[in-house]
C-alpha cells in the first residue's frame, strides 16, 4: 500500500508573551492508504495540533507534510482549501453544522461547493442519501439539526465528511461529546467506512475507541513515544483488544 500521508520532522511552536511553547517536536510518521490510525496522549500533549497541522488547517513551524505526494506547505490558501474540500474529510468533537440547513443539505454542502466533482446534482443527492442510509440516519434527512440526537448528528457529520469521496478522513475526538451508546454507533460507522477503503486518522483519549483502529500513535510532550499495532486476529473480542491496548498504554505511563 502507498503512503497517503508522510510526516517528517514536524515541529510546531507557539509564542505567547515572548515565551516559546514547542507543542510538536520532530514528529515523524506515515499513514498508508486504507489505514485507520488513532493518536492518543494526555491533555496538552499536542494531539489536536498534530491533526490540524497535518490536515493543512494549521501551518507547521518546520518539517514537511506530504499529502498524496504533495508538500502541503507549498500550497496556497486557496489550493489548501480545495484539497480539504475534495480530498480530505473532517469530523470534529462538537457536531458543528450550518444552522439554517436540514441534515441532508448540510451533508450535501461540500459536494455542491466542489468544482472538481463532476457528478450531477441528482447524483450527489443520491450519494448523500446512500451514505445516510449506510449510517442509518436516512429517516432524519429532512430534519433540522436540532431535531436529532447527538449520535445521529455525529453520523451526519461523518456523512458530510465522506460526501466528496475523501482520500483521508480526519477525526478530532469524534466520540468526545457522545454517550457510550452513541459512541458505539459512530465507531461502528467509521469501522464500516474503513473496511470499505477509507483511510482514517483520528485523535482520541478513549482506549475503547482507539482499540478499533489498526494502529495507535502515542504522543507525549509533542513527540511520538510509541506505536501500537492492533492484533490481526479477527476472532479477538472487543474487550480483549481494548485490554491489550490498555496494557500497552500503561507501559508507556498512560
Amino acid at each position, binding site marked *: 500500500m502507498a503512503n497517503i500521508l508522510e510526516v517528517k520532522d514536524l515541529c510546531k511552536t507557539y509564542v505567547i508573551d515572548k515565551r516559546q511553547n514547542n507543542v510538536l517536536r520532530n514528529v515523524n510518521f506515515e499513514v498508508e492508504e486504507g489505514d485507520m490510525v488513532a493518536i492518543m496522549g494526555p491533555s496538552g500533549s499536542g494531539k*489536536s495540533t498534530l491533526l*490540524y497541522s497535518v490536515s493543512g*488547517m*494549521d501551518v507547521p513551524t518546520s518539517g514537511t507534510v506530504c499529502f498524496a505526494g504533495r508538500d502541503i506547505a507549498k500550497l496556497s*490558501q*486557496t489550493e489548501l*482549501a*480545495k*484539497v*480539504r*474540500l*475534495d480530498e*480530505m474529510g*473532517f469530523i*470534529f*468533537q*462538537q457536531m*458543528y*453544522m*450550518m*444552522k*439554517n*440547513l*436540514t441534515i*441532508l*443539505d448540510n451533508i*450535501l*454542502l*461540500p459536494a*455542491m*461547493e*466542489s468544482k472538481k466533482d463532476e457528478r450531477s*446534482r441528482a447524483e450527489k*443527492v443520491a450519494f*448523500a442519501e446512500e451514505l445516510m442510509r449506510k449510517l442509518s440516519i436516512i429517516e432524519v434527512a429532512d430534519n*433540522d439539526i*436540532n*431535531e436529532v440526537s447527538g449520535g445521529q448528528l455525529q453520523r451526519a457529520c461523518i456523512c*458530510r*465528511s465522506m460526501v466528496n469521496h475523501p482520500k483521508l478522513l480526519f477525526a*478530532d475526538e469524534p466520540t468526545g461529546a457522545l454517550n457510550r451508546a452513541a459512541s458505539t454507533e459512530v465507531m461502528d460507522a467509521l469501522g464500516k467506512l474503513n473496511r470499505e477503503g477509507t483511510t482514517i486518522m483520528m485523535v482520541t483519549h478513549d482506549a475503547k475507541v482507539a482499540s478499533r483502529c489498526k494502529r495507535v500513535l502515542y504522543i507525549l510532550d509533542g513527540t511520538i513515544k510509541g506505536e501500537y499495532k492492533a492484533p490481526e486476529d479477527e476472532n479477538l473480542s472487543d474487550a480483549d483488544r481494548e485490554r491489550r491496548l490498555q496494557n500497552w498504554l500503561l507501559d508507556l505511563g498512560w
Partner: protein
Amino acid sequence: MYWNILKRDIKRKKTMNVILLLFTILAAVFVASGLNNVVTVMNGTDYFFEKAGIKDYVLFTQNGDGGVEQILKTSGCVKDYSMEKCIWGTNGDITYQGEKLKVKNNTLLIQSLDTTQFHYFLEDNQELTEIADGEIYITAGSFARNDMHVGDTIRIQMKNTDKTFRVAGEIKDALLGSDLMGNTRFLLSENDFKAYEADKSLEPYLGRIFQVETDDTGTLSAELASATNILFSSERATIRLSYVMDMILAMLVLVLSICLIIVSFVILKFVITFSIREEFREIGVMKAIGIRNAKIRRLYIVKYLAMAIVGGIVGFFVSIPFGNLLIASVSKKMVLGNEGGYLFNAIGVLAVIGLMVGFAYLCTGKVRKLTPVDAIRNGQTGERYHKKTIYRLSKSRARTPFYMALNDILSAPRRFITIVLPFFICSVFMLGVVMVTSTMQSKSMITCFGKESDIYITDPKMMKTVLVDKDQEPVLQENYQAIADELEAAGMPVDKVSMEVWYKYACEANGKLYSVLFQQNTETHTTDYTYEKGTPPQNAYEIAITPMIADQLGVEIGDTVTIDFGTEKRDCVVTALFQTMNQLGKVGRLHEEAPTSMKYSTTMPGFQVDFSDHPDEKEIRTRVKKIKELYGITGVFDAAGYCVDCMGVGDTMDTVCLLLLAITGIVVILVTVLMERSFISTEHGQIALLKAIGFSNRSIFWWHVIRFMLVAGFAEILAVVLTRPITKLWCDPIWAMMGATNVDYYFSPVRIILIYPGIVLAITWIAVSVTAFHIRRIRGTDIVNVE
C-alpha cells in the same frame, strides 16, 4: 463597578459602540439643527419683514400710478401709505463685463436709496444708509450668479441714458429677495436715479411702489380693483409665503432628522438586543448569585446614557456650523434673528438623549427573560416550534454562496429587518425628494401654470411692447401674428401664438367686495384646460376658480359672483374648480369671450406657441435654440423648462437631492459595517466550520456579500415601489400651501429606479465587501475554540 463594566464593553464591542455613537451624533446634529432652522426661518420672515419695514399691503405700478394714489388718499381703510419711484428694466439694459447680466427673474428695477421707505441690509446685517454718486448696490445672489466682486463696474443703458457704476455691495431685500419673487433691485444715489428719471423716453417704464398700512386688506384690495397699471399687489402674508421654498428646505432637514432618529432607534434596538444575547452567560451568572433585574438593566442603561450624553454634546457643537451651512442660502438673503440663540439646538439634543435612554430602558426588558439556565445551556433553550428551512439545497440549482445567502434570509427574515428598515426609511425619503425634484423639472406641472404648449417665450424684451402699450388690444393680436410670421419664415410652422393675460377685477360675493386676479387666453378655449371639479366655463359669464378663491369668497360651484369688468358689471356663475400655482393658488379663469380690457391687465407671463406639425421633444428643444438665436433672447422654454422657470428652485432641489444622497450614503455605510460585523461575530463558528471543510475565503465572502445585497436590494425595491404613495403623504400638504391641490408626480425611471438606488446599492456593495474581508481572519482551527 459601572465604570468597569462600561470600560470592558467599550473595549469588547469597539466597532458597534463607535457606530452607535456616530448614529447618536448624527441624530443629535440633525434634530438640533433642523429644529433651530425651522424656528429661525419661521420667525425669520416676520423678523426680517419687521426690520425691512414692510407694511400690510404692497403694490407696484408701471407707466404712472394708474389712479392708485387717489384711491389710497380717499379710502376709509387706509391708515397710512408711502410711495416711491422706480424704473423697470430688463437684463438687456444692464451690462456686466461686456455681457448681459445673469438674473433669476428678468424683470429688474432701479431705485434711489434716499427716497425709499424700505430698509436694506448689507451682508453683515448692517443697514445700508448711504450710497455715493456713481456707486450701486445689487440684490443678494447676484455676485455668485455673475462672479461679481465689489469694485467691478456695471453699465445701465436705458433708452437715452447710459451710465456706468462701481459695484459697492449686495443687499438683503425682504420684498423681492425670495426664490419665488426673485426680482433684482439696483439701488443708486438720488442724483444718479434722477438722471434716468429725467429721461422722457423712459416715462412708460417709470413705476411706483406703494406701501399701505391697513387693518382691512380685503376691502383695500377690492377698492384698488378699479386702478390700472398695477403690475403686482399683495398683502404682507402672501409675500411672506414667497419664502415657502426656504421653509420647505428647513422642513426637509427636520423630516430627515426624524428619519435618522427612527434609524438610530432601529440600530439601538439591534445593538442592545445583540449585546444582551451575547452576554447571556454574564447575565445568567448575575441572576444566579441573586442580582436583581433592575440592577442588571441599570448596568446597560448607564452605558447608553453615557453614549447619548457624549453623542449629544458632540452633536450640539456640530449642529451649530451644520445648521448654519444648511441655511446659508437663506441667511445670505435674509436678516435672520432667532432670539432663542442656540436654545433650540440644546432642546433638540436633550430630546434625543431622553428618547435614547427611554428606548434603551424598553429594549433592556429582554434581561428579564434570561435565566441562570441560559448560562448553562449556552443561551439556547432548545425550544423550537416551527420549521426553519423552506428552501432546500438538494432542490436548488443555485451556487452554494447564493443558496446559503437566500436560505439564511428565507429561514430567519426577522433577523434582517434591522437592515431593511434603515435602508428603506432613508431611501424612500431620498427618492421622494428626487421625485418631487423631477416633477418640478418636468412638464407634468404645466397645468399648474396654464395650458400646455410647445414653446413659451417669457423674455422681457419680447414682452415689453405688449406691456407698455396698454389699452390697445390690437397690439396683442399683431404681436401674435408677427411672431407666427417670423417663426413660419424660419421654418417652424405655427398653429397658434397666444398668451395668458392676468386681470385684476373687483368681485362681489355674499354681499362682500373682493379683488381677484383672473387669467384669460383669448386664443384658447376654457375646455382646453384641466379642472378638478365641475365643467369648464361655456360662455362669457361663466368662470372657474381655485379652491382657495372659493374659500375666500365663500362660494361653491353653481354660485354667482358679480364681476366688475370695468366696462360692465355682470353676474358670473362658478362652473368649475381648478388648481394652479400662479399667485400661490389665488386666481380665477375667465372664458375666452369674457369682456376683458387690457386696461385692467396686470401682467402677462409669456407667449405660448403651438406648432402645427406637432414636433417631438427633441425637435422642440432644437426650436427653442433657434428662437433664442432668431430674437437674440434667453427666455425661451419648452414646457418643462417653463415649469422650472416659474418655480425657480430647480437647482436648489438638485442640491438637496445630492445632500440627501450623501446622508443616505453615510447611513448605509454605518448600518452595513455594523450589521456585517455583527453577522461575522455571531457566525464565527459557522465560518470556521466552512473553512475547515474546505470552503474558500472567496465562497464565504460571496455568501455574506450576496446575503447583504439581497436584503439591501429588497429594501430598495420596496422604497421604489412605495415612493409615490409615501411622497404623496408628506408632500401633498406642501404643494397645497402653494396652490397645487392635486399634483401628478413625475416618476423618472432613470433617476428613481436606476441612478439613486443604484448608487445606494453600489455604496452598500463597497461597504459590505470591505467589512466582509474580516472573514479572512477567521481560521478553520477556530472551530475548536468556539463556544
